[in-house]
Every structure is written in C-alpha cells, then in structure tokens.
C-alpha cells in the first residue's frame, strides 16, 4: 500500500505558515486515498509558489512555464491516457497568464484535474494583485486599490459548462483531499479552486478571514446538478463562502473523442506507421 510518505519530495521553500503546506498534504492524501502509485501520476505545474509543488512531491512531474499547465497536461494525457494527470497552478498562473487555456481546456474536457492555489495574490513576485484579488486591495502596483472586478473562477467554469467545479480550503485538509480525490475520479476536466492563504502578501484574506466565512455545501440542501442554481451559488462571496462541489455533470472526455486512442495509449503503440497505409497515401499523389 502506498502512503503519504511515498509521495514525499524535496525540502520546501515556502514561508512558514503558508497555506500551500495544507495543499501539499491534501494532494498527497488524495492520491493515497485513491491508491495511486507515484509512477502512475503526472503532475504538471506552472510557475509561482504553487509551481514549486513538483519539487516537493515524488511522482512524474513537468514543471512548465507560468500560465502553461493545462495544454501540456492535455498533450501528455492524450499521449498516455493511462496516467493520472494533475495540473497545479496559482491564481495568477491559471486565471491570469493562463486564462485562455482555462477557458478552452474546460471546453476540450481532457480527463485532468486542475488544482488552483488561489491565494488572491501574486505570491512569488511579491504581492501584486491577482485576477481574484478582492476589490480595494492595495499593493505596490495597485496603489489605489484593486478596481478590476474580481474573477469568479467557479462562475466562469460553470458558464463554460465545466464537468466538475469545486472549491476547497487549504485550512481543511480532510475536506480538501476528499474534494481532490473526487475531482480525480471525475472523468473529464475537473476544477478544484482552493482558498490558500498567503501569510506574507495577502493581509486581507488571511487564514482567520477564510475560517470565519467558509462553510460546506451539504448534500441535503444542495445538489450540484443544476447549472443555473450552481451559477447562483457560485456568486456567494463575502460573509459566507461555500466550499464543496458546486456543479457536476458527466459527458465524454477529450480522450473519448480521439479515435486514435482506441488501440491503447499512443505512447505505448508501436513507433512505426504501417507501410501498407503509407504506400497507399503515396499512391494518392500518383
């Protein structure tokens, strides 16, 4: 049996008290829960504090560029759909620099899990506003406070009919890890947006701030199958912040739509194209 230790990587370089520690533990726990072995998992990351996760985990990893997590994860999944592919990114990474891939990744629906370390700030570059920063937050660059309407990742994902839309909190590792496990099990693109306090640069949305506000969607009151209701729920932000699965629907994944994958993972198929077929192609030009 695998244990959390099997996924243990190198020394962390995050700040003491950072919300990312909870995320790291939750990711490992989720993988253990699902009985995944390190070599079965591919973690694709962007650049940012979240982008350091690959160095602190033990599994296959591809530490990509800032904002570029979803496309390489999609390509890798298409090449070897036997892999469990996780993409991890920051809020700037995923919703800012990588925003276009977020939209179209959802539309394409590869069976990958997008885990977003949403600390509502640019951590690694020392505290500029991110797309999810709350209105009015002041930084060195946003000296009059943020005035751009904060991006609501859940509402955005629901508007794109994303198959699995959820929010976790790095302060609740149990809940978060079970969310991540659910997201991995969901066939198709799944989003886990995580409230992850940055204890250094985000003095507004602190652990305490989140803790006082978060509550879990309960199975009895809320069912994640109605898109409009999910949209409405996703707008809730402020005094109360819901956690859990906001929206879920099933449907064919990207890989399901690729006939070439019918014969098994592309990466495991033989390298030589059929000579007979090639000859036929050549003859079409004769």
């Amino acid at each position, binding site marked *: 049996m695998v244990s959390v230790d099997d996924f243990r990587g190198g020394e962390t370089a995050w700040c003491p008290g950072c919300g990312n520690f909870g995320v790291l533990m939750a990711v490992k726990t989720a993988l253990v829960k699902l009985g995944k072995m390190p070599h079965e998992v591919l973690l694709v990351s962007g650049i940012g504090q979240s982008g350091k996760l690959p160095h602190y985990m033990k599994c296959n*990893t591809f530490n990509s560029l800032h904002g570029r997590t*979803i496309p390489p994860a999609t390509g*890798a999944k298409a*090449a070897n759909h036997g892999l469990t592919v996780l993409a991890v990114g920051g809020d700037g990474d995923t919703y800012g620099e990588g925003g276009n891939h977020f939209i179209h990744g959802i539309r394409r629906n590869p069976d990958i899990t997008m885990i977003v370390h949403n600390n509502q700030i640019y951590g690694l570059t020392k505290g500029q506003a991110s797309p999810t920063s709350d209105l009015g937050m002041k930084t060195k660059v946003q000296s009059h406070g943020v005035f751009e309407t904060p991006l609501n990742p859940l509402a955005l994902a629901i508007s794109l009919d994303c198959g699995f839309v959820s929010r976790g909190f790095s302060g609740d590792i149990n809940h978060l890890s079970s969310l991540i496990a659910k997201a991995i099990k969901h066939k198709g693109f799944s989003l886990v947006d995580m409230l992850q306090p940055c204890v250094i640069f985000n003095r507004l949305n602190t652990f305490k701030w989140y803790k006082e506000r978060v509550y879990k969607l309960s199975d009895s009151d809320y069912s994640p199958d109605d898109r409009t209701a999910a949209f409405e729920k996703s707008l809730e932000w402020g005094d109360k912040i819901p956690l859990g699965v906001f929206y879920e629907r099933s449907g064919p994944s990207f890989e399901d739509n690729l006939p070439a994958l019918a014969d098994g993972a592309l990466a495991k*198929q033989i390298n030589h194209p059929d000579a007979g077929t*090639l000859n036929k192609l*050549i003859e079409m030009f004769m």
Partner: protein
Amino acid sequence: MIDTVDVGIKIGGAAGQGIQTIGAVLSKTFQRGGLYVFGVQHYYSRVRGGHNFFYARISNKPIYAMRERVNLLIALDHASIDEHLGELERGVVVVDRDSVKVDSESESLFHVPLKSIADDVGGSQLYANTVATGAVLGLLCYPFDILSDVLSQTFKKKGDAVVEKNIASARAGYDYAQKNFPGRCPIMLEPVEKPNSRMLITGNEAVGLGALAAGLKFLSAYPMTPSTGVMNYVASKADSLGVVVEQAEDEISAITMAVGASFAGVRSMTTTSGGGFSLMVEALGLAGMTETPIVIFLCQRPGPATGLPTMTEQGDLEFALHAAQGEFPRCVLAPKTADDAFYITSKAFNIADKYQIPVFILSDQYLADSVFTCERFDLDQIKIERYLMKDAELEGADYMRYKFTKSGISPRALPGTAGVLVVADSDEHDEAGHINESVENRVAMSDKRMGKLSLLRKEMSLPAVYGPAHAPLTLIGWGSTYGPLKEAVDILKAEGVDVNLISFNEIYPLPIKKINKILERAEKTVSIENNATGQFARVLKAELGFTVSHSILKYDGRPFTPEYIVRELSKMVVV
C-alpha cells in the same frame, strides 16, 4: 534526342472561380501522361473575388521552377488580360468573351463560350471550368482519355452523374477548341509513352506525409496561412494512421500541448507561420530547457506583423535562430523542394529525438503551395529512431532525466511507462530534474545542453553543389529558392557562363570547417534570398566569418524566377 517540350499555362480569375480545380486537373492530366509538371499558386487573403492565378509549367524533362513566359492563358476574369497578356509568348488566350469583356483584338485571343457550352452540355454554368480544361487540352492536342480518367477520379465522390457531366463538358470544350482554333494545335504537348512512378505533390503535403512516415502521433496547431495545409493534410489521414490532430485555442496552447505529448512519449509537431510562431517563442525555450523533442513547422510569409498573408518570403530565418530568452541548442532545416521536404521532415523527427531539442522545418508559402513532380518517395530511406531507454534498462535503475553524460544527451525514459519517475523542469535543474541554482550545476548543465549542438553540428549534411566544383561565379541560396537558382544556373550555362550553385537545406548548426572548405573554393559569390536584408548571408558571416561578395534580395512577396535571377546577375556585371 527528343525535343524539349516546355509549356507555361496560366489560369487567372477571381477567388471562388475554381482556378485551383482547373489547375489541379490539368496538372494531374499532364503528370499521368508522363510529363513533368511544376505549379505555383498566387492568391490573396479573400475567399471570393480579387485576382488569383495558378501557373503550371509542363515539360518532358525535370523542372524545378516556374518561368515568366506564358504559352497558354485561361482568362476567367478581366484582370487576367490586364495583368498577364504581356507575359504571353507565341501563345493563346482562352477567354469567354461573353462574360469577360475584352477590347483588345489581339490575334492570340481565342474565344470559347465556356458558360454557354457548360449550360448546354452540363446543364449548369458551374461546368465552365471543366469546359475550359477541355479546351486547353484540345488546343494542345493532348489525348482526351487521360483527362477523362482524371475527371472520373476527381469527381468520383460526387456520384456518376457529376462525373459524366464533367466528362461531357470537357469533351465539348476539347472539341470546340480542336474545331474552332484557326490552324489546329498551336502548341503540342504529347504524353510520354513509358509509365512512370512519379508523384505530384505540394510542399505542404510532402511535409505532412513526411511527418506521418516518421511516426507522427500528435499534431496540435492553430490555423495560419500558409502553414494550414500541413494540418489539413495530416487531419485528413489521421484516422488511417492513428494520429491525434487537435486545433488549439491559440499558438501557445498548440506548442505546449505538443511539448506535453512529446514529454509523455509520442512524436509531436506543431505547424504555424511567423505570427503564430511569435507566440510559441517562450515554449520553444521550454522545450530547450526541459530537453523535450519537438518539431516546429514554420512556414514563412512576408512580415512584419500580418504583412502579406498569402505571399512568400524568407524573412524568419534569424528569428528562428535566435527566438527565446537564454541559450540552448536547436536545429533549423529548410527544405528545397517537395521531395526534400518529405525526407528532411522525417530527419527532423530523428534529430529531435536523438538530441532532445526543438527542430524547425523552415518552409515558405512558395514551397508550401507549389506543386512538384517528384520520384515516388522511398519509404526505405525513412528510419525511425526514438532513442528511448528500454524497459529492461530501467529495471531497478535510479533514473535521472538529466544525467550528465559525455555526449550531453541524457538517456530518455517516459513517464508512466516503466515504473520510473520522470522529472522535468523549466528552471535550471540538477540531474534529477529539480531546481538547482548553484554555480557549478548551472555551468555543467549549460555545457551539457550546448554540447549537444557541437555533436549535432558534425552530423549536419553539407550543402549541395550544383554545377562544376570550381567556378568563377558561385550562387548561394537556401531552402525553397533552390529550384529557380538551379534553373538560372542552367540558363547561364547554356549562355556559356561558368557558374555553380551552393544550396543549403540544413541551415543550423552549420558544420563550420567543412563548409568553409567548400566556400573557400568560391571566387565571386552572390547570395540570393527572398528577403530584404540578406539574413542567410549574415548568418554565414556570423557563424563562419564568410562574407559574400554580392547579393540579390527580393522582398516583394513573390518568388524568384530563373529569369529574374539571370537579369539581376547581368545588371550586377558579375556575369
């Protein structure tokens, strides 16, 4: 000795008038008759209207370029008369004067009532193109049955009725020409008896076919003229060879998807033109740093920015050579012709896999869209070498993705296929793939990566020398200008000029010493490029310290013709 047959046919008209269909049918018909065909497309960035043309040159000897003279002009619009009548050399213009009003009473004008014949015979003016095709072959006294075969094949999918109407329309055009042209057969074009195994293929199709033959499994791209043909071709054949073709939301996604697929183990490619490649630059460096093989098909068109989106230029060479921050090895190949494109594409994949680097196939609109007659591609020449570790080698190994080796090439394993962990990093990293910023590691890793370049350099093929090994005048070209340059040399030779041609298709890294040996022999050198600043000449200077003595630069969006080169050379008084 057989007489040389050499005929230029131009079909001019608006976008949407079916010029390409006429061109394709004619080309195929001549090729089936054992003749050599070379075809060029000229079009604009619009779907209907404007003035486009297709130019086909037909000969009984191998040909590699278009010529400026036209022997037969099919004028589907008035602009064809305005723009191309002057190009006519002892030739005939086929024109439907009922629809194209022409003032001129030039003797070369031959009225064929295309539309009314089409209406009569095919029941619709839509067949006017086929009537024109028939008329051309009638004028050339070319056997009708070859055309009828080609038409059957071309329209097979649309059903028997359509095939029959096309054949009847063609026949009517053919007969009309034979009957009405004053003095039959103004130009003769006879099929060659012996059967041949030649192909008629565009540069783009050849790249696509080359990639498929090399075992391409994943192509992600965003459409961009003139590169799209490769994506279209591969998509049309993807099912038969189990290939994934995915249209990305943008070029950043296109290349990074391909990089991800390659990392996970399959041969991957992306196709684009300069504007799209601009967006791929950061990911080029990602491939460089993570040492992930990737083939980039970069099909040049005139810039800057949107530029002349449907025309040709060789303006992106230095851009491809220097794109992305930092320093890492890359390889640039620039095919000369369609068959070269086929073989060089398959080579690109082997180089990418062997050295774990990005490899460019640098083409241009001229090569991409032109139709070449090639000998049947030889699949035996295609060797697929993946340079991957075998599962047995990995058993129990403490695998490190970036292991230091003498060659700088680290053994490559794939994630998820052999139980080992594959760790790749865009930061500077240690052998295990984890971030490491020490002085020692940085220098060692940089040396490791750049060392691969020296190795690759030794493996690069030398440029071909056409003509005598020594000559007082040496033309230098690269990529697609090969055809016009070769023919320019032929013309000059016929005029008694002692000249040779050095044509490069493996552009970077250059095997410096060996090339210097070749260039040392040269006296007067003229670098001939389809750009405004002489980029390749500058590369020769920067890389080899070699300075060309003269240059001919063309940057009007149009390809070279042999005649143009000869004219410019004589202006320079170097000839």
